[in-house]
């Protein structure tokens, strides 16, 4: 069998895409089945229970825990204001009364006679969920959220930082291998999703942040630049919550590497379109990759685009692949042989391999685990 499956990142000019937009806790869903929503629309809302402030009223009053309920001036469920007196001892002959003031505004959640602890719950915190994908609501989930569907152009990156961002796609680099330098960033790129080419450095990222760019998409990044931009060394690839002033999507990997030609061409063809981007990356169970999504009008035949494939493809002779590990990291070629038998690598390990032939005619043998499929 001269074929094998290997994962690849999705880069599609047109695909039917679904996103599930959920509240962290039960709340209110604001849109119904069939509603057409814009990316920035709020589609669901909830009130998160407020922060809790525990107070050891017994020790504040110098009283026994068992006496605390009796000394409380407010009961469970009642509202209190910051610094309001909420408990008072009887004192001696009505004198020397000890008082306890609320450390926060809110409602009394609980009063414990066992520990003398009183817990105040602060005002609830509103949580809103935006549509993120401009499209049609195909499945409302009562009290939880919705599923939105649209025909989109989709570019998955390999790694990103920062959360959801919205803006118009704008090209900064003229070629996919052109590094994204700071001088290529201009003030009118504020609020836009800027597409670079090759490696982006920390100076360019800082400039982009200064300008107010919504998101930067480029081929490669040096680890040292990432560390400098974040202010710390990223230990585990679980990102998305960074507050660094912009969203970053890296399409290929770390180092001096050009954006894949096909990805670059697709993004170039979408210049001027409104898009959504997300840098959130999670590389453990339930893999999540960063992405740029551009909603497209439905197909002229009314049937729309084909549903999204799983991203896994068949590896066979002639399949275009990218090598994703040194010593040939980043090089692109076509599969020219798929030997059956395990092969002894330079490292001494035995592994199943394939042969990749580059445009130059040169061919190399690499482990199958070290290539990624490029969809055509």
């Amino acid at each position, binding site marked *: 069998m001269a074929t094998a499956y290997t994962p690849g990142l999705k880069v599609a000019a047109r695909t039917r895409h679904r996103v599930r937009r959920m509240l962290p806790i039960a709340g209110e869903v604001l849109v119904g089945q069939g509603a057409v929503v814009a990316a920035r629309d709020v589609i669901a809302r909830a009130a998160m229970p407020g922060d*809790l402030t525990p107070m050891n009223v017994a020790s504040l009053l110098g009283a026994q825990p068992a006496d605390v309920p009796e000394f409380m001036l407010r009961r469970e469920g009642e509202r209190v204001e910051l610094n309001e007196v909420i408990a008072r001892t009887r004192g001696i002959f009505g004198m020397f009364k000890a008082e306890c003031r609320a450390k926060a505004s809110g409602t009394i959640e609980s009063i414990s006679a*066992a520990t003398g602890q009183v817990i105040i719950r602060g005002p609830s915190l509103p949580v809103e969920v935006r549509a993120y994908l401009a499209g049609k609501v195909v499945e409302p989930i009562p009290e939880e959220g919705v599923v939105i569907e649209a025909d989109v152009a989709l570019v998955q990156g390999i790694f990103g930082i920062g959360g959801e961002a919205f803006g118009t796609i704008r090209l900064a680099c003229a070629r996919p291998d052109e590094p994204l330098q700071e001088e290529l960033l201009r003030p009118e790129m504020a609020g836009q999703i800027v597409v670079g080419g090759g490696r982006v450095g920390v100076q360019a990222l800082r400039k982009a942040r200064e300008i107010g760019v919504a998101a930067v998409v480029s081929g490669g990044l040096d680890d040292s630049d990432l560390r400098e931009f974040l202010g710390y*060394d990223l230990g*585990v690839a679980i990102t998305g919550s960074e507050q660094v002033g912009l969203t970053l999507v890296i399409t290929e990997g*770390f180092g001096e590497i050009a954006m894949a030609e096909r990805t670059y061409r697709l993004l170039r063809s979408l210049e001027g379109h409104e898009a959504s981007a997300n840098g959130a990356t999670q*590389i*453990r169970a339930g893999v999540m990759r960063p992405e740029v999504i551009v909603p497209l009008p439905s197909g002229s035949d009314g049937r729309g685009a084909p549903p999204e494939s799983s991203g896994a493809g068949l590896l066979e002779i002639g399949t275009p692949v990218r090598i994703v*590990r*040194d010593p040939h990291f980043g090089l692109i070629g076509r599969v020219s042989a798929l030997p059956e038998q395990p092969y002894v690598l330079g490292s001494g*390990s035995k592994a199943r391999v394939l042969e990749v032939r580059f445009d130059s005619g040169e061919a190399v043998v690499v482990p199958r685990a070290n290539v990624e499929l490029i969809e055509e």
Partner: protein
Amino acid sequence: MGDPRTIRVVVATDCGSTTTKAILIEEQEGVFRQTHRGEAPTTVEAPFADVTIGVINAVTELQELSGRRLVDDEGRIIRPARMENGRPIGCDIYISTSSAGGGLQMMVAGVVREMTAASAKRAALGAGAIVMDTIASNDRRRPHEQIQRIRELRPDMILVSGGTDGGDMKKVVEIAELIAPARPQPRFGGKYELPVIFAGNRDAASAVRDALAVPGIALSVVDNLRPTLEQENLGPARDRIHDVFLEHVMAHAPGYDRLMAWTDAPIMPTPGAVGDILQTIARRRGINAVGVDIGGATTDVFSVFSHEGAPVFNRTVSANLGMSYSISNVCAEAGLDAIMRWVHLPMDDRELRNRVKNKMIRPTTIPQTVEALVFEQAVAREALRLAYQQHKEFATTLSGVQQQRTVGDTFSQSSGGRTIVDSMALDLLVASGGVLSHAPRPAQTALMLIDSFEPEGFTTLAKDSIFMMPHLGVLASVHERAAMEVFERDCLVHLGTCIAPRGEGREGKPCLSCRIEPVAGANGAADDGSGAAFSGEIPWGELRRIPLAEGQEASARVEPVRGVDVGAGPGKPVERRVRGGAAGIVIDTRGRPLRLPEERSARCAAVARWMKEIGAID
């Protein structure tokens, strides 16, 4: 479950996060052997969402390889084992472990971080859980910060301890009062009741019940895991964790209700089963043992050390020390310089940093060149060293079950206790995990273990051939003899024995003299000449390999110079039987703690010399 005496054929599976591994164990001529293995992708997640599909696929592979029909037409495992139409079918028992869906994730809480909270953490880790956080009254977080943390976590269950029996109740009830309104969200969604186990001051149980009598929490109360300051009693809490794991957590995972009905012994969390088999081995052989499993995201270390006459078990999980997902974190924690000291080849810093990150974002890639392999093994040394260090700090006195202490000891332990991990007393070090078990040369595995664990005295080194220890852990609960026989014959691949003196000496100065004589025909193995006799002096600063093949044994007499200890005390000779393996006998006089030359070229030369000597490189 049948009578152990009637068991002849066993099927065991381990449902991991990505792969379900099945093994077939059969009694052959009165001895249990592992005969075949099969594997298939785990099917807990969509689109399958049923763990039993992966189990049946893995068992079907076993069936094809063994020629024994194990799965019937309805897709069930056939029992008992018998002959049908002249062909063997079925098995006598089917058992399983599971770490699918991220394993068992717990939060623990106690009053004093170093006392009850530490005991609670030990109980959870010993049961095979990942401890997401430990909340304690003195953990330096303010109560509202603790509540915030509880709210953010999505544990499978919470273990609350605190207070000795008859002691102060207030603090432990306060902890329960924090958990109730925090309303932690369980991982399995809204309808799941979050199990909370209370194993604290028994007098506080009713107040804790009142505090936690809120919707969405299912409380159970067990015996205090720290009934007195001097005593730890982890058994009841640990058993309850296993019960809750089965009743609540597993029952909510896709397909586990069916899987639980199939198995003939309760499903165990994978690391819990590994801990059990290690304890069984240590008990039966009367030895001290350490097991390590280094994965892509985490490194687990298990140890059993005899302390005051009783074996004490400990397990730690170093959550972000691993070889793929967490490789970048190993570099951040250890520092690139610490990793590079194990690399004898010239490499560029910037490129290495990028390589590390590229491995993190593409975790399934494998090293193709010698340079890449040397670097990965250098990272592994540091990950193992850090994980072992964390283990030593955690495995302190007053751990394990029912230990008696004086109150004086208790006060001296308030700052954390002394470690019971004694490298000189360690007899067996077992390695598992891709970077160790799939290293191209066994000598590389042996050297990684020696460099990171720094064993002292006489230590047998081995690797778990196909990560079979989880299966054997469950089997031991049903049929201990079968588990032990398979462990000895099929599970362990012996790498050899490391002999190392404690202490340091100047390079080239006399350290010890040694005489090694292979014992002909030991363990039934023929003396094929692959073990060479050796007699001579070895100075400080060396790593010397004396070949002795797997299955062979030798008699070793080591006489250290004055003041140097190889196990019997300073200057005293030791004579012992040692086991061979692919790496043979390794005499390591590089000193403990192991220090590498400061100067770069001298260090590279030394590292290359050691690697060559042991056969890790040509």
